[in-house]
């Protein structure tokens, strides 16, 4: 990871969100994203991100800035930051995970997928549908068949909460 303590003049990048807001960040911060890194290597300093909305981009820039300054001494601080970062609604997490995927930030992607997985693993299929805004496209027979084939997995109490 690039150090931000470089004495030479810092190169800046401009990121443009899907709702046309522009953000200026240091190149060393931006290149943690593979997508941005590839563009920078091709000589771009202006990076439009048509798939990333401002709300998600602000959070992601925060994350990148924090993680660009990673040293041995602020390990705990970053852990706390990450914990706060994912402590949000499912809808925000989906926005962020799409953005992280588009931007190819693997450590963020890992963290978000793990968080979503942890938060849905004890939930019932009905609760998951509501959380993901999914209309069930099974016929009742098809669903019954799946439940019957693996009855063991559907035994017991599940978390029906939507957060």
């Amino acid at each position: 990871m690039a150090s931000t303590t470089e004495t030479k003049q810092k190169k800046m990048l401009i990121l443009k969100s899907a709702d046309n807001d522009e953000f200026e960040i240091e190149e060393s911060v931006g290149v943690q994203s593979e997508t941005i890194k590839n563009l920078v290597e091709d000589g771009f300093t202006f990076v439009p991100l048509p798939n990333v909305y401002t709300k998600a981009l602000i959070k992601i820039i925060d994350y990148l800035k924090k993680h660009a300054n990673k040293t041995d001494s602020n390990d705990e601080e970053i852990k706390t930051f990450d914990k706060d970062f994912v402590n949000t609604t499912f809808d925000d997490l989906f926005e962020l995970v799409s953005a992280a995927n588009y931007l190819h930030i693997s450590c963020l992607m890992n963290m978000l997928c793990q968080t979503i997985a942890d938060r849905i693993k004890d939930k019932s299929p009905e609760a998951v549908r509501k959380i993901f805004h999914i209309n069930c496209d099974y016929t009742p027979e098809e669903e019954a068949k799946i439940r019957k084939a693996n009855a063991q997995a559907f035994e017991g109490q599940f978390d029906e909460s939507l957060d």
Partner: protein
Amino acid sequence: MPKVTCKDLLRLSCCPLRVTVTQAERSGFNAESQLSNNVSGTSTEEHEESDEQLTLFRVPNEILEQILSRLNLKENIRASAVCKQWLAASISVRVANKPPWLMFFPKVGDLVEFYDPSVRQALVEL
């Protein structure tokens, strides 16, 4: 400063865009053919409908697979009851517990036979 249009960016960027619904459905078709009789059609009309549906998927397939791959088998099976997209994704990342090999003591000489019940194949080792 070079001017970049969205189109240029899409061309330059190496990152794959969202998987198309046709792909998603195709994998659903492979995974559980008996459930996908009504999604296997590829008429234009249906395709348009699928595109519309794509925007309704909050999480595209490639991301969903990454999420589901972090669940254990029981949780994975439960996730497959959510909808057809989830069924296809959960099956593609499902790692079922493999049964252990059986070992047979030497019948002749030093040859030991291992038998893998999942593929019904015997392996012989010295």
